[in-house]
């Protein structure tokens, strides 16, 4: 064989294998693919509901996605409510710009970030780079070039574990599945049948540190971006199954104090949204059971109504 052609075959093999892996990871089959599909479904819903003069867009990680009942909130507030929460490991730097394009004049944007997101020193998480590539916006959130190159390369690796799990899924269920594969309803909330429960032991999450400077700076920037689009940013502390020792409480108080300087912050001042009853939670320290989502949504509605600048008194 002609020697350069021999070397081309290496590139061809690598490219084919990478493409197969990419299709699995980002398009259909791997965890990231379900997250991408969920995100795109939510964005499509946001684009459909453009006509409303005023909407409530709720964003954050899965601590937003799995914690509200948007339909109930919509009924109570009298405006369209859309759950745009995605996944914490996507990171604040990527979550915020990935939804900013959907903000219209008059919109209220409610950001409910998990502490994991607020603790990040650079606003990036494990999935930041790959999520950006998967949604067709590589480098979104200022992912450093080295990280972007590495994660893009790994996007072609389906992994033996991933492929085996998907194969078993196909045999057992007739289709591939993933954490986010249940889809979303018309409000962007998890599909009704989605009721994940923790099987292992519960333990209270310690809140070991307050919000980082980077997170504050990024949320401040987000407020400016939202306002530039004619929207209003509201922040909320997440409900979390947390340890309520002195240090954790102090850190949450400090976080609340700092966030309140940026935008109206809603939370229960008694509990600081630090819950000590694990029955409220589904499978993580943030995800709520469907019943708890209703309680949480009623509380959010009440707290939103109390913000004077939102002027909800005239709404139904």
């Amino acid at each position: 064989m002609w020697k350069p052609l021999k070397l081309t075959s290496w590139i061809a093999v690598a490219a084919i294998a990478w493409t197969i892996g990419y299709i699995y990871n980002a398009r259909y089959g791997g965890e990231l693919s379900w997250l991408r599909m969920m995100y795109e479904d939510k964005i499509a819903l946001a684009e459909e509901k453009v006509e409303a003069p005023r909407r409530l867009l709720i964003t954050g990680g899965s601590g937003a996605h799995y914690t509200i009942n948007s339909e109930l909130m919509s009924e109570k507030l009298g405006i369209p409510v859309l759950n745009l929460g995605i996944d914490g490991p996507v990171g604040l730097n990527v979550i915020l710009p990935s939804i900013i394009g959907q903000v219209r004049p008059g919109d209220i944007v409610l950001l409910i970030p998990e502490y994991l997101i607020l603790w990040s020193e650079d606003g990036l998480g494990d999935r930041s780079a790959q999520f950006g590539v998967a949604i067709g916006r590589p480098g979104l959130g200022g992912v450093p070039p080295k990280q972007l190159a590495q994660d893009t390369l790994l996007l072609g690796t389906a992994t033996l574990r991933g492929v085996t799990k998907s194969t078993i899924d196909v045999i057992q269920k007739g289709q591939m599945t993933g954490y986010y594969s249940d889809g979303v309803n018309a409000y962007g909330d998890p599909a009704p049948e989605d009721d994940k429960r923790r099987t292992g032991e519960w333990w209270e999450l310690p809140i070991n540190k307050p919000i980082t400077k980077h997170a504050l700076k990024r949320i401040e920037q987000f407020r400016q971006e939202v306002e530039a689009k004619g929207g209003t940013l509201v922040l909320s502390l997440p409900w979390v199954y947390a340890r309520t020792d002195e240090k954790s409480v102090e850190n949450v108080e400090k976080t609340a104090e700092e966030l309140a300087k940026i935008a109206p912050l809603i939370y229960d001042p008694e509990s600081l949204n630090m819950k000590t009853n694990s029955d409220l939670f589904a499978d993580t320290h943030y995800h709520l059971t469907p019943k708890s989502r209703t309680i949480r949504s009623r509380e959010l509605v009440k707290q939103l109504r109390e913000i004077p600048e939102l002027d909800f008194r005239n709404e139904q």
Partner: protein
Amino acid sequence: MNFSDFSFWWILLLYAIPFFAIRYVGKSLKLWRDELDTIGLAVMSLMLFLNASRSSFAIFIVEIVFNYFMVRLMLRRRGNGAKLIAAIVIITDIAILAYLKYLTFFAEDVVGIVVPGFKNNWEQGFPLPIFQQIPPGVSFYTFQMVAFVVDSLRPKYKKPIAFLDYINFIAFFPQIVAGPIERRADLLPQIQSFRFKFTAENFELGLRWLSLGFFMKLVLADNIAPYINLQETANPWIVWFFAYLFTLRIYFDFAGYSFMALGVARILGVKLTVNFLAPYTSVSIQEFWRRWHITLNNWFRDYVFLPLMGSKKQLAAFFLFITFTLSGFWHGAAWNFIIWGAYHGALLLLLRYTGRPFQRWMGAGKVSRFQFISWALTFGSVTLGCLFFMDTNILRLLSKLRTIVTPWAYSLSNLGEFLSSYSLNEGTVLIVTLLLANAVLFMEHLAVWQKRKFEYELLLLPWVSRVLLGLTILFAANQPSEFIYFEF
């Protein structure tokens, strides 16, 4: 270098793009001198080493300067003067290695056992920094430096060598951190005439080795690693199974690394020594040690065993045992490694005295049965050895040994517990990984049975290499484990 760490490839890329662009322009304008390739290689190696470990790099710079100038001095002397300098260099190198690698072990696990209270207090009064973990590469480049000193004592090596060539000989980035431990006669001539030779043939062969190495490390070793749990001591089925998994993992991990080194070097136009030759095809422990970590074993043979034995050939068995125990101790500063070395030394002696009678007892005419039983005994012995190797906790190791020699622990309920310890997904991944691992081992066996020229001939076939590359990209574990030998 950690070839499975993206940082390595990133630094290599960031360096290579501007360097080779300048080189290309320089060559086009006929301004590029060949010696600049040597400088380019040295800078590349040192940058990559610095990126791998700053502490190790600092120690390395001191050692390489010291060694170079001492060897230079040595080459100007003859007779006892040269030998004295050689002794000073070797003692200094080994002392640095001992300080970095064995200080804590010696203080806590040797002196600490004899002197009450010493174990907990010795660090406070110690005047030098204490390393809890050896900086990467020290064990390997120290041995290469020592070998260079000894080899340079030979009369034929009286010509001084250039500093840059010495740096490239010791610091050559594909092999500095975990070998192969190269000898002066094999590597130095290639380094002295080094020019970047990116030929299609070098690329092809280099990529084949890289492909095999990556597959062994990222697909096999890294997918096996999460299944090995050192805590299990009560169930003999599980203890044996984890020892078996570790036996596979350590081979695929270290051979994978060595083959990657071979591949990267080959792309640069340098041929490194093949460090493994299908060790699990061995039908005796002697053969196993001719196939496993070859450059280290040759080092121990030439610089420890033969000098120790000298003319006292009647004590060869004793010195062999001592050499293997020392080799075990080289692997790590813990009792389990010493036991492991001594165990293999003892096995070699056992084979030396009982091998022939065993062969006669098995029957001379039944070669295939003898071969199979010998292979099974060898592999079983190596697996048992891995039990010592894998666990630095001596009390836990003793507990495991007690368990595997307790006949009633091999109960059906324990077997059931073992078989039901995996979920469907976990079990399936493990089975697929083991199938792939054993397919690789089978291809090594096949090459040996077919008496091919080279044990990895089948695995390095052009189409097999490309399949392995594709499988690596698709099935690599997304969380690579550390290379085991980086800890040594």
